[in-house]
């Protein structure tokens, strides 16, 4: 698999796509999100697996997002995700609340090719009251009186994440973040940015294979050095907390967010660096 340029990777995402991304502690595709802003993606239906952070807030602020299904949106120590909060207050995006294991479970159902999967808990939560697509049935394996939640399979159109490396076969090294495999398995198309390409076949290396996602699931790969920045990437580099704090501060206002975009996302220099 020959790497695609980053902006070409972003161009593979059609407007309106159901796009799943991992959170800021698990290989979030930050450079890819910036490329989506540059390509003026519109109407994206994001899925935060199971929560969302910087990349999602950026896409919401840039007007790329129609809806968001997730269990939470947070910038971690930097606090509230400001463009998300503004969009909820303005009612400018459709927000579909879930709870973390429900997101995992809906993806696992798609991974398994079944139309639904059960989950304990959740009954009595207002989240359930606002999910017409979730159903409670009486557990057929009990003697009655045991309500249990059934969640429909969720198969994103596209999953995107940033990983350590890829090989020519499209195999992707994600290390201990094995939950990325489920996201990849459940999604129809998988687009990945990586720090670097490697020689050989990652799946033939018995030491690396356990942390590898099979290229069978992967449509395209783009090189993006420090492509998780300002988020960290495993033991490759740490989160740039100062930058996230700066983002959180600037994004508090629409004007500040524009300044941020101009400086870090759409400026010719910022773009060329990616």
């Amino acid at each position, binding site marked *: 698999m020959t790497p695609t340029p980053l902006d070409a990777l972003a161009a593979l995402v059609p407007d309106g796509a159901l796009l799943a991304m991992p959170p800021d502690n698990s290989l979030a595709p930050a450079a890819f999100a910036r490329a989506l802003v540059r390509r003026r993606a519109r109407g994206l239906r994001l899925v935060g697996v199971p929560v969302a952070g910087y990349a999602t807030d950026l896409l919401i602020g840039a007007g790329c997002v129609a809806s968001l299904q997730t269990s939470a949106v947070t910038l971690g120590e930097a606090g509230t995700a400001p463009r998300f909060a503004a969009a909820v207050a303005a009612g400018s995006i459709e927000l579909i609340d879930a709870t973390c294991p429900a997101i995992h479970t809906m993806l696992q159902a798609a991974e398994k090719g079944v139309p639904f999967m059960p989950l304990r808990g*959740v009954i009595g939560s207002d989240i359930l009251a606002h999910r017409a697509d979730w159903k409670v049935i009486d557990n057929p394996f009990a003697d009655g009186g045991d309500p249990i939640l059934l969640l429909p399979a969720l198969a994103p159109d596209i999953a995107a994440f940033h990983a350590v490396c890829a090989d020519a076969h499209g195999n992707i090294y994600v290390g201990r973040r094995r939950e990325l495999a489920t996201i990849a398995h459940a999604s129809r198309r998988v687009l990945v940015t990586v720090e670097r390409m490697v020689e050989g076949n990652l799946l033939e290396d018995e030491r690396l294979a356990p942390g590898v996602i099979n290229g069978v699931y992967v449509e395209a790969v783009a090189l993006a050095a420090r492509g998780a920045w300002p988020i960290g990437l495993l033991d490759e580099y740490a989160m740039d907390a100062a930058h996230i704090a700066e983002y959180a501060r600037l994004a508090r206002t629409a004007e500040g967010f524009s300044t941020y975009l101009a400086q870090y996302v759409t400026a010719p220099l910022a773009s060329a660096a990616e």
Partner: protein
Amino acid sequence: MSIHPHERLIGAIARLILDPLAPPARHIAVGAASPIPAAASWLVRKLGHDVRLSLLHRPTGNPFTEGTRELFDLAGQGRIDLFFLGGGQIDGQANLNLIGTGEWPGRAARFPGSFGSAFMYFMTPRTILFREEHSPRVLVPRVDIVSAPGLSAPGVFRRGTAQALVTGKCIFSFNATAGRFRLASRHPGETQDSIRAATGFAYDGADAPVTADPTEEELALLRGPVCDEMLATYPQFCRQVWHRSDEKAA
């Protein structure tokens, strides 16, 4: 060095963890951005108790290989005895609201979201609720939105609910049968009136003893080995409470 209020909260939570009347806490999980519950759990360990800690969101050396899914699966299996939850609003029936105030989905003020609360609250035998802000804004008669209910109808699968609610002013214990909190202790400087005035929900127990300070042994453990364990994950917290920073992490 005087006792930092956070040290008092940490010590109080550690005692709740060790409560001999509560179900045993052999395995404690602590979510992200929870320095005080994490420190309390470490304190229990450093006091010599045989307890397993699963701390999420350590940048490396995370105990899981399937992210939070493994945490939730562990809880589903019944392998996590104690978890910590908070809430933008908490009411007198121990209902939690991590979603927002006003109309769904939080039009007045949106909180980050439910995270895994709507699952974890059902799956662990014990939950210690922790919210430092103690005000009528947070401790309300009835949450605007229930992200996780404190009590469930008969027949609904549930292993436990809140053991207690720890705030910056006091500790409430929760009586699941009555569906009510009871004042268990008030932190130094608080009175029964100051707590009553800051609490939006009705609770039992007009007054209660003062929350005990951490012992000298506990303080020494907190300032030494507990802080050592916390430095990499919570550098800012360690600086603030113990004036220590990790040279390696800096």
